[in-house]
């Protein structure tokens, strides 16, 4: 497989999206969820995709490995270049070589992403057996993976069913599973939204640590600018299927250009800032701003 791929080295483009469109057919109506997105992620880079529900950020992540339903329910056009190879042109069989192995996912609700009738060890082993057939002692590898995400007593937890673990532990298992095959790119889709703030901080720290250790790229999909700072290198802001702003995180946070970005940052409740009211997003103002941009 690697013969198709450009060799990897830090700083080189890992993923490039060109003019990505995603359209859903819903009861005879077309919903244009993503409207011509362009994006690049370099090797070792962390890019945050920020936007509200419905902005198209999650479907962008899912489109990468054809996780969306096929035609006619959903149509994806454009180019998805992963290490120089167009993933759009891949057959179902081919894409399975990439999904999980090269590009792995963790989702918002660990509780519903895990299969309740298998032990967590079994589920992690499945990924390893599929993508790393060269591994002889799968159990040892699973225990290593659980240990990597700081699950105590991995030999015991190995035999636990998902319901025996807390939400934070379940998310650790999901991360262990995603990283068991040493992916180059991790799509973290709202990884901490369902978790408490203290657990959120733990999971973000864990991802930070593993990123260094494994040297992977991360696409962090979130609605919360709060967790982006100090974690991502670049941020891409999406609004109704379009990218309205992108740039280095510190720059965008310090000096947001687009009114939508400003609104998104403004509505986060901050400690010690007991304003009378929280800022909400004025969509009319943003739409007018967008129209003005188009005219220019």
């Amino acid at each position: 497989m690697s013969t198709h791929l450009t060799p990897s080295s830090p700083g080189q483009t890992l993923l490039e999206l060109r003019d990505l469109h995603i359209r859903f057919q819903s009861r005879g109506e077309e919903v244009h969820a993503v409207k011509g997105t362009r994006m690049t992620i370099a090797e070792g880079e962390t890019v945050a995709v920020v936007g509200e529900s419905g902005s198209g950020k999650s479907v962008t992540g899912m489109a990468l490995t054809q996780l969306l339903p096929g035609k006619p329910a959903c149509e994806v056009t454009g180019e998805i270049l992963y290490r120089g190879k167009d993933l759009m042109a891949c057959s179902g069989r081919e894409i399975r070589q990439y999904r999980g192995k090269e590009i792995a996912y963790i989702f918002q609700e660990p509780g519903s992403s895990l299969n309740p009738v298998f032990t967590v060890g079994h589920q992690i082993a499945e990924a390893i057996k599929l993508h790393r057939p060269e591994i002889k002692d799968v159990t040892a590898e699973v225990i290593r993976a659980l240990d990597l995400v700081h699950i105590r007593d991995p030999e015991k937890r190995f035999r636990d069913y998902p319901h025996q673990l807390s939400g934070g532990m379940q998310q650790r298992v999901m991360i262990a599973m995603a990283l068991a095959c040493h992916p180059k790119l991790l799509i973290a889709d709202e990884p901490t939204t369902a978790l408490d703030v203290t657990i959120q901080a733990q999971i973000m720290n864990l991802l930070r640590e593993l990123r260094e250790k494994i040297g992977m790229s991360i696409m962090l999909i979130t609605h919360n600018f709060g967790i982006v700072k100090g974690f991502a290198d670049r941020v891409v802001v999406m609004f109704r299927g379009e990218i309205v702003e992108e740039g280095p995180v510190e720059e965008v946070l310090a000096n947001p250009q687009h009114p939508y970005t400003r609104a998104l940052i403004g509505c986060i409740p901050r400690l010690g800032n007991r304003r009378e009211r929280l800022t909400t997003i004025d969509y009319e103002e943003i739409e007018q701003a967008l129209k003005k941009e188009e005219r220019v």
Partner: protein
Amino acid sequence: MMTEIPQATITATDSLIRVKDLKVHFPVYGGVLRRVVDFVRAVDGVSFSIPRGITMGLVGESGSGKTTIGRALVRLNQITDGEIFFGDKEVGQLTTRGFFPWRKRIQMVFQDPYNSLNPRMRVGRAIQEPLDIHFPRWDRRRKEGRVRELLDLVGLPRNSGERFPHEFSGGQRQRIGIARSLAVEPEFLVLDEPVSALDVSVQAAIVNLLQDLQKELNLTYLFIAHDLAVVEHISDEVLVMTGGKIVEQASAEAIYENPQHPYTKKLLEAVPAI
């Protein structure tokens, strides 16, 4: 429409809710005979009082017992020991039937607006349901008028009543949940993580709505959350809870400016700063 509510019993004490040494223990069964082998002490000796008209924040991680307190106040959990006063009336030990008249004065808004609404019930019916139970003598027109009033109050379009929950976004669904809890004109609302499942932008709108409603309807809130930033914003006073006990109680400013307990400090540190 207040005539059907039992005579107010709020007298000398200015606190609306007073909780004394509340304990909620859940039995743990074990062994072949499934006997009670132990208890989970979800709430273990908690006392606090909430003055009328304020928002009391209640923070802690999952498992700290904060939701159990909220559920005990609306009697969704049986209390093991202790007293709950509403005004000067003890309501914690009442039977379900005895508690019934109090239900319309103490209402609850739940965390997950996706699972707390019946997917097969039109929104108008869902909001009207508490009226059917607590005001059975109202005629249809009066109830429907009240539903429209409530939709206006929470900022939903008037025709929302005809639609089903799945046609609404998360934020709109939480508005429906709030309208439903306000239908019977409660004095006290337990808000159990009302914004945790929502986008930050939608959170802001719901928090603002709750603050407006509080002023307009003179409501008292118990606001349960794990995010100190939101709690600090909306609350007058804050209770910090861990392991079934309250470890700190102070004004919202004091909690932020001068946290005393190490656990409070840990919670504060976990809030991402921008």
